[in-house]
């Protein structure tokens, strides 16, 4: 069984985000990119399936700052093949362009399963998974938190609100949008990553031109200027705690001592 996990790198939300001079895109000059957190779950799910049923795991990442880290980290966790897509990703590519580019490469890999993160927080034109599935001619099922493979079929646990799960049978090959792996993504110690950097090879594949057609235009982008904002309580730990106690008391929210 061959499992392919394509990666999207998304802005690290811990950093401040700025809008560029054009006013319709993020300023990418100082943008720190990290792996889309749901892709991390997709990688984990791939390893869980490999551990249970054998097979090969291939990770594909676009050539952006952070891609090598992601690939070597995956290698340290047990990925069999690492592929970096070479092209000018620096200006940012939308889901449509990324999906088309990935499809060209992943189609040739003849995967049984393609696991993507269900979405990334900066998606504005759908998500990579379902678009990729279209270009590969494979079925897509998203919001998945659990997969079992047997006899060319896959049983997927799809999440609905409130914790309800639908068990669906999906014919392989197929693309899944992973919401959460069955277990939290594993950690790998730095020494193993350093080792992988020496022993693992990253294959490079040229992507050619991007085709971003299919997304609606973004005409303006702005940092959220909320119409409402919390009243901020400042001061020392004691002062803030006192004020919060007062807020709770005024509203009758201090439970009688039981």
């Amino acid at each position: 069984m061959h499992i392919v996990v394509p990666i999207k790198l998304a802005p690290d939300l811990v950093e401040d985000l700025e809008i560029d001079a054009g006013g319709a895109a993020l300023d990418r000059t100082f943008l720190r990119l990290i792996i889309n957190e749901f892709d991390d779950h997709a990688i984990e799910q791939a390893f869980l399936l490999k551990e249970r049923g054998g097979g090969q795991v291939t990770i594909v990442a676009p050539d952006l700052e952070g891609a090598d880290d992601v690939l070597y980290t995956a290698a340290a966790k047990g990925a069999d093949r690492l592929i970096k897509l070479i092209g000018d990703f620096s200006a940012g590519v939308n889901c449509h362009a990324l999906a088309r580019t990935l499809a060209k490469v992943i189609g040739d890999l003849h995967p049984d399963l393609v696991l993507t993160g269900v979405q990334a927080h900066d998606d504005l034109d759908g998500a990579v998974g379902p678009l990729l599935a279209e270009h590969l001619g494979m079925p897509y099922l998203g919001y998945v938190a659990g997969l079992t493979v047997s006899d060319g079929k896959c049983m997927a646990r799809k999440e609905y609100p409130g914790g309800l799960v639908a068990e669906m049978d999906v014919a392989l090959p197929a693309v899944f949008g992973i919401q959460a792996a069955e277990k939290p993504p594993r950690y790998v110690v730095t020494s193993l990553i350093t080792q992988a950097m020496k022993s693992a090879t990253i294959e490079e594949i040229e992507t050619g031109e991007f085709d971003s057609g299919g997304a609606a235009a973004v005409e303006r982008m702005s940092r959220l200027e909320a119409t409402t904002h919390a009243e901020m309580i400042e001061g020392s730990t004691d002062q803030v705690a006192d004020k919060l106690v007062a807020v709770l008391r005024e509203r009758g929210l201090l439970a009688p001592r039981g």
Partner: protein
Amino acid sequence: MSQDIWVVVETLRGAVMDITYTSLAAGRILADGLGIRLVAVLLGHNAEPLAGTLGTADSVIYVDHASLADFTPEAYRRTISGLAKELAPRAILFGHTSMGMDIACGVSLDLNAPLISSCERVKLEDGRPWYSSPTCGGKIIAEGPIPDPVCVLTIVPGGYKPEAVRLPGPKEVVRMAPSAALEGLRITLKKYIEPQAADVDIAKEPMLVAVGRGIQQADNIALAEALAQALGGVVCGSRPVVDQGWLPVPRLVGKSGVSVKPKCYVALGVSGAPEHVEGISGAELIIAINTDPRAPIFNVAHFGTLLSMFDLLPALTEKIRQAPRP
């Protein structure tokens, strides 16, 4: 060319989901602004009575077929795309949900229609229909025109309250047969698995202390437990905390968990991502403790502090314990 605004109705085991009403509210604004009709598209099997709360729409298209009894991506997508090719709507609105996100991309490619996802609000600007979508965890708003002649949008909760548009009706129900073949489906529903039984139902708790990823590690949950105990409440959490196994699944607040409506919600190290915030819109008082001044949680909270929870919690818990009760 009908050029109506369509809202694809989401149903789950015989109930219309709230996101459908949110989408209808958005659709109503577009339809009224453009002077066209709002049509709800309902798929199912013996499900026509569900049209009874879709009165905000001018009309309901109802497609009945055994393969549409429950949602599966291929059957629903083929049916919607087939109808849309026949009737040429101006825009199709899906929920940005487990169902909608499985098929919106495919439908947009079938129709060669541009796709806009995570749309929270719509409006008319200089006569042009216009979307706005929160992105980057709600820190950024992206806006632009809704292109013609046809466009597919996925709608997130938050912009419009579902209750206001849950109206009896509609004026007409048009029954249609699926125009697409519904055989040879590669995805089939086997069964539903009920949610894990909960020791407490957080939807009913008046006092909740929520922990987010800022709590850093399982051992620190005890700090939140202590605060909850002092307040006479219970601990709940965000998705990463539950995915880590630090809290049980029934304690998850948000899109994939529970919508809560406590008198007071204390959020510790929760950033306020849209998927979390959608679960707390019913909270009467929200207090946010978060070290990031730009955390979106402060836009929904009533009171906030930038102190680290690790500094504040011991003192706060102790003061609450000591505070005189009325």
